[in-house]
């Protein structure tokens, strides 16, 4: 299984993702970068060293120096790209996908995921299939970068961006579940930076995920029970590259990942105002939060490329998605779980409110998400048929179909990462949201035998 997208290539490791294919992509990226240095990091998956080796080899052969960060969360890698004035970066991680997946995520020179134009250019090189090869005197050099160096720079900046003193004074007790991912080796450093009492969970960076690395309530049982047992003020659940995070309140309630973004948004927008960017599958909560702070909201197609393009074009001050990814470009244009956790703790410290109380202040919507297998060849036809169900209504066809009503919305779109259709509905009432999704699922059953 393989998905080739604008921000990288993603697939199930095995015959469909051999080293030579990884090399072709890395060579295409190397051509795009044009002999400038590239920062490379990886998550802890057991096949990540294979992708790393293939990627490094191809980049060296394209004439790019490789700054090798080893195991590194994507947000730390993105900081490193800017700090070292590199031409770009490659993060080897499938983020929230299960253990059999892996991916190359391409980072541009500004430290953000490639925008669609840059992504198209890389794909053009890939499809052309003729790669520039440096002669022996122009090969790239492999330069290992000590983990401490990457961490030092990142956490110094983070400590300055977040009001660390306020968090420190609150003496929080915090549970973080790193899911044995790339965030694991950095938890202690993070706790030091903000001065809280850390209870680490699954912090061996060995790639044996104790649960799916997707931050959402379904995977948060262990984290929630430790929060309860330890009497912690907050629990955080990371994906495998520490880009996304979902929350567990002090009452040990595993919160939907949809809450992360609006909760952080409220505190960011309280400080400054400007455009907010999200995708069109994200909860309406953010609309209410942005409206209350008088900030315009821009919705894009799903995927990092369109979000970060809009963020740059509209001079946005905040971006996020319902999957638990939040980016504050004043810090860096990147989904960043460490920053997000820091902002949540900062909000708790400064308002003196518990996490459950902060969540209660948010407008309540109910979101129902389902996915249905659909062969790639049928996706287009199926979506057109679904669109006919909504004849006469205002159907947004920017990415699949999305139909709004007063109470909420419903959306059907092709997954960016799997041969699946995602059906998502949101409503003030849980029952109505469920009904909207079920109605579509029933139709899909007829269409896809």
């Amino acid at each position, binding site marked *: 299984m393989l998905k080739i997208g604008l921000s990288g290539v993603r697939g199930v490791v095995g015959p469909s993702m*051999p080293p030579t294919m*990884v090399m072709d992509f890395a*060579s295409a990226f190397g051509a795009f970068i044009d002999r400038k240095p590239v920062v490379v990091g990886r998550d802890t998956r057991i096949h990540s060293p294979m992708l790393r*080796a*293939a990627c490094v080899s191809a980049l060296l052969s394209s004439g790019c120096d490789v700054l090798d960060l080893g195991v590194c969360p994507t947000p730390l890698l993105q900081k490193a790209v800017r700090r070292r004035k590199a031409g770009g970066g490659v993060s080897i991680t499938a983020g929230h996908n299960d253990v059999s997946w892996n991916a190359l995520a391409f980072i541009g020179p500004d430290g953000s995921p490639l925008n669609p134009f840059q992504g198209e250019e890389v794909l053009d090189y890939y499809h052309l299939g003729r790669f520039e090869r440096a002669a*022996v005197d122009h090969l790239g050099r492999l330069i290992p970068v000590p983990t401490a160096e990457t961490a030092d720079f990142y956490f110094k900046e983070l400590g300055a961006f977040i009001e660390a003193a306020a968090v420190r004074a609150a003496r929080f007790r915090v549970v973080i579940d790193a899911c044995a991912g790339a965030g694991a080796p950095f938890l202690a450093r993070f706790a030091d930076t903000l001065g809280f009492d850390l209870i680490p969970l699954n912090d061996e960076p060995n790639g044996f995920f104790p649960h799916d690395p997707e931050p959402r309530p379904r995977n948060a049982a262990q984290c929630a029970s430790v929060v309860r047992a330890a009497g912690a003020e907050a629990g955080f659940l990371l994906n495998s590259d520490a880009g996304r995070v979902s929350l567990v309140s002090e009452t040990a309630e595993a919160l939907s990942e949809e809450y992360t973004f609006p909760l952080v948004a409220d505190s960011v927008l309280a400080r400054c105002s400007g455009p907010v960017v999200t995708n069109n599958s994200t909860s309406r909560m953010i609309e209410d939060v942005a409206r209350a702070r008088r900030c315009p909201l821009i919705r894009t197609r799903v995927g990092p490329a369109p979000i970060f393009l809009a963020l740059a074009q509209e001079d946005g001050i905040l971006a996020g998605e319902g999957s638990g990814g939040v980016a504050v470009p004043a810090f860096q244009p990147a989904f960043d779980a460490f920053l997000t956790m820091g902002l949540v703790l900062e909000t708790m410290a400064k308002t003196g409110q518990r996490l459950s109380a902060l969540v209660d202040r948010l407008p309540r919507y109910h979101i129902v998400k389902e996915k249905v297998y659909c062969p790639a060849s049928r996706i287009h036809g199926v979506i057109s048929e679904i669109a006919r169900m909504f004849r006469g209504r205002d159907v947004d066809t920017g990415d699949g179909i999305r139909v709004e009503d007063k109470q909420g919305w419903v959306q059907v779109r092709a997954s960016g990462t799997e041969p699946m259709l995602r059906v998502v509905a949101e409503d003030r009432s849980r029952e109505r949201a469920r009904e909207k999704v079920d109605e579509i699922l029933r139709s899909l059953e007829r269409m896809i035998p």
Partner: protein
Amino acid sequence: MKSATTLKISISGARGIIGDSLTPQLAAALAQAFGTYVGGGPVLVGRDARSSGIMLAEAVVSGLLAVGCRPVDVGILPIPSFLYLTKEVRAAGGIAVTASHNPREWNGLKFISRRGLYLTPQQTEEYLDIYHQGAFDFVAAGKFRTIEVLPRAADAHLRRLLNRFDGEAIRRRRIRVVLDCNNGAGAVLGPRFLRELGCDVVPLACDPTGEFVHPSEPTPENIAGVCRAVKTARADIGFVQDADADRLAIIDERGRPLGEEMTLVWAASRVLEKTKGSIVCNMSSTRALDDLAARHGVKIFRTRIGEVNVVEKVLAARPRAVIGGEGNGGVIDPEIHPCRDSFAAMGHVLDALAAGHKPVSALAGALPRYVLLKDRIEGSAERAHRLIRVLRKLYEDKGTVNLLDGLKVDFPDHWIHLRPSNTEPVIRVLAEAKTEIRARRALAALRGEIAAAWRKI
């Protein structure tokens, strides 16, 4: 290359030009084929000192991981140390990233069996079948193995060497040695080995950076600078290793190169003084080895050109072979490991020096010695074969004709040899005799016959 292409995939592995034919993709696919062939398990990955080595080693590692092997990264390692280690640690095999003496824009992969030997032609065919069919055993995501890093990987070979050579006798002489590694892989072990033997080492170009100071083949014309250094340093002896440290050239105390032919002669002479057994060498090696065999009453076996062939005979020879090698400075001491090993060569030479109480020039002077002249003619392998068909008839009643590899004709006081090169589109022509004048005359005569035969075909 027999043809003029810049890529060669053959029994001696794969060789190509960086930035052109030898790409990471190709290296990964070959590693996948090899990993599939050995069926998983630990596979050593090492390299010579060339700057392009890292790029290819990473590609090899990715290919091995993808088919479920466990790559063991041994870093920069002399090829004899690599071969020895592969057997010693019971690896499933090894891939060495090296292009031995080729110019710096070249690099290549060599494939090594679990016995620590280069793949035989049969084995190569089997694994190349996998490569050509693309029948790789990719493993599922859950079946991946980890990469192991083996630091100080040369230590195993060093221990074996020190075990083989009597440290005390050599140490007492406190021999002053100029060692030139030409910044090749030998630098990882050479200075250490000699110091452990109690030598006073004057290191030249002993940084394994792969930046060659002189052309990599240790022929007299390439090592003139080292010869001068031996004189200025008032050293007892000079050693020059080639880029992957399987071949050795020797310089005497007056700064004169002995000629690569003499390395094997000297090592063989020393070994035979201590242990009786067969000598194995290729057809182009000096006749001095036959004289040695006669002097010691032992058998000598001659094989086709190519290290694999010599090694195969070393393993098979009866009575057991005690020494083997090639005239190009490659010495095989089967007691250590059946591969060309410049360290073993140094050990035997120093051993002889310590026992002999004479300068190098005197000891070398006592060895049987011939003058071997080498020449080359532009021409493909195909043309060479047509030439040989014509010339063999001509020589049949003049001398003893041998067609094992090209055409070799033995005469009472000299021999000539003509064969297509395995690595370039040229025909190699050799003549050896007791004196230079006689050898020149033999070579000129052979060239005359070739020119005449050329016109006929």
